């Protein structure tokens, strides 16, 4: 896991030194991530690159949260776009129709989504495997249908305009500023997730993933932990959703669709389950890929599907863990020589 964290940041080189203390590796990864976020814009020739980078950061926030649920706790969710959409619409509706300032409507919406996740998570997380997948899928689809149908509140399938985020009477706009906001939010999300994973909570989650019954016999309250991680991942998704809406200035129900839920899960699995930086890499690659594929026009979906199939065949555990394993093997071979 920790080796994986290093590899994603600096190529295969850093993995060579096994960390002496757990804290050191975590700090190293976080410093590296901060450097990447700060230095990346130096290579941006125009605003379009900022836009893409912002999208990557926003998707990555959702994926880091979702990976806590899927990769660490081993609970699948095919409905997280629902939370993402509710976070977006919640904040927009509070701001546009009830006159809330956006700096207040965003956290309020995110907390409301967290509360909702707590309520629906209770019966949902009793389910296992494919039944859990079905239930979360159902929740997501229902949210998306409600957002599409309640057009007096949500603007229906065409979506609605979003009031901008203003702070101290100043409207926050411009790609560089939003890049700074989303970059900071991503770093914060990664920091929170790493802390969570390397605390006793993380060990409890991994125990759950291994065997729920075994975890319970050693005193892990599996229902409670699963529910907590579910709520945390919903909070991450809602926060990213609200940020996306106020950045883009527009929101449509497509953000809450089943396809978006699936995209998010693909990003997590593609990057590597149970790897925080893997989630970031997965989000980055799969946000960039469609941008590159737009040149293919009609062939875009076909090629995207083919790339996905090929990647999962050759990297069945996701990119970052597979590369980390290869790096570790190369290192062992180097040591033996």
């Amino acid at each position: 896991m920790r080796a994986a964290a290093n590899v994603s940041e600096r190529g295969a080189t850093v993995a060579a030194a096994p960390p002496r203390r757990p804290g050191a590796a975590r700090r190293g990864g976080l410093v590296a991530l901060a450097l990447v976020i700060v230095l990346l814009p130096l290579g941006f020739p125009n605003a379009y690159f900022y836009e893409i980078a912002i999208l990557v950061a926003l998707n990555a926030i959702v994926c880091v949260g979702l990976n806590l649920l899927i990769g660490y706790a081993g609970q699948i969710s095919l409905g997280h776009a629902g939370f993402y959409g509710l976070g977006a619409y919640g904040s927009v509706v509070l701001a546009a129709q009830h006159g809330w300032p956006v700096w207040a409507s965003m956290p309020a919406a995110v907390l409301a989504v967290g509360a909702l996740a707590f309520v629906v998570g209770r019966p949902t997380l009793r389910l296992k495997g494919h039944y859990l997948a079905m239930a979360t899928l159902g929740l997501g689809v229902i949210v998306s249908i409600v957002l599409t149908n309640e057009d007096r509140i949500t603007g229906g399938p065409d979506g609605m305009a979003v009031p901008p985020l203003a702070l101290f009477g100043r409207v926050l706009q411009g790609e560089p500023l939003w890049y700074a906001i989303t970059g900071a939010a991503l770093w914060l999300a990664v920091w929170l997730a790493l802390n969570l994973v390397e605390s006793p909570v993380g060990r409890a989650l991994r125990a759950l993933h291994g065997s729920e019954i075994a975890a319970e016999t050693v005193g892990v309250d599996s229902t409670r932990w699963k529910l907590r991680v579910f709520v945390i991942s919903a909070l991450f998704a809602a926060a990213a959703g609200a940020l996306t809406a106020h950045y883009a200035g527009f929101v449509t129900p497509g953000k809450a669709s089943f396809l978006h839920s699936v995209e998010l899960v693909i990003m997590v699995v593609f990057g590597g389950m149970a790897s925080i930086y893997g989630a970031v890499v997965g989000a980055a690659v799969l946000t960039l890929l469609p941008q590159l594929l737009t040149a293919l026009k009609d062939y875009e979906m076909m090629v995207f599907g083919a790339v996905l199939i090929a990647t999962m065949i050759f990297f069945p555990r996701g990119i970052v863990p597979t590369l980390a394993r290869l790096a570790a093997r190369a290192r062992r071979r180097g040591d033996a020589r």
Partner: protein
Amino acid sequence: MGSDWLQFVAGGLTAGAIYALVALGYSIVYNASHAINFAQGEFVMVGGMAAVALVAAGLPLLLAVPLAVLAAGVVGVLVEKLALEPAQRSGRADVVTLIIITIGVALFLRGLAQVVWGKGIHALPAFSGSEPLALLGATIVPQSLWVLAGTTLAVLGLGWFFGRTLTGKAMRATAHNPLAARLMGIDTRAVMRLSFALAAALGALGGVLTAPITFTTYDVGVMLGLKGFAAAMLGGLGSFAGAVAGGLLLGLVESLGAGFVSSAYKDAIAFVVILVVLFFLPGGLVGARRSERV
């Protein structure tokens, strides 16, 4: 009032029959691989589209329909051989990886259909005229009867296949315990391939039968796939009787709900039902109450 009911029930059974065919596909693939095949809805699309294309090429309906189902079966085998088998052979692919691969397959097939047939809506001529039949005050399109008859025949055929033939029994044995099945000399790879062929053919049959009623587009498989999945879960994944019951039940509830409650929320009703059922019966209606192995 009574005719309203009959109308909704007839519509519900027609839709439910298709859900049942799709759900059967999910269960067959699940039994062979323990994975959910999210490309199942795309097989429905492939069937409908292939039939439309064959009819447009001048083939009579009587020939186009079986050919389209056969073509989808071949697509199913190719999917298994080219996408799933390489992943499974590496031995490092778990169920989630397989599921993501099937999602990739779904996107690929949907994208391919979009390239070949465009984004337009295609219609297949009805099998025996489109003059509606009056039945106790309700009007039913003849194609509905074709759907019900076709589904009934397919289900009976499957029952015979799994109950009476050696191949069918081999597939059930593999579902029960793959390792023991291999030790008995069953080629579980071939079972996997056959399962995909069967699932694809069943989905395609559904697609061909409904194409004259609901028309078909490159992305018709998305919602049908989800509803079929819901139907399979409702009946208990892996159970054939459950898949049929779940499909019909889902179609009925949806049709009655759309008729009497809200047509805008027609698609949501199916998912509300499945959530309520899962919350109270976490293994589906027919699902076995299994205890977890440690």
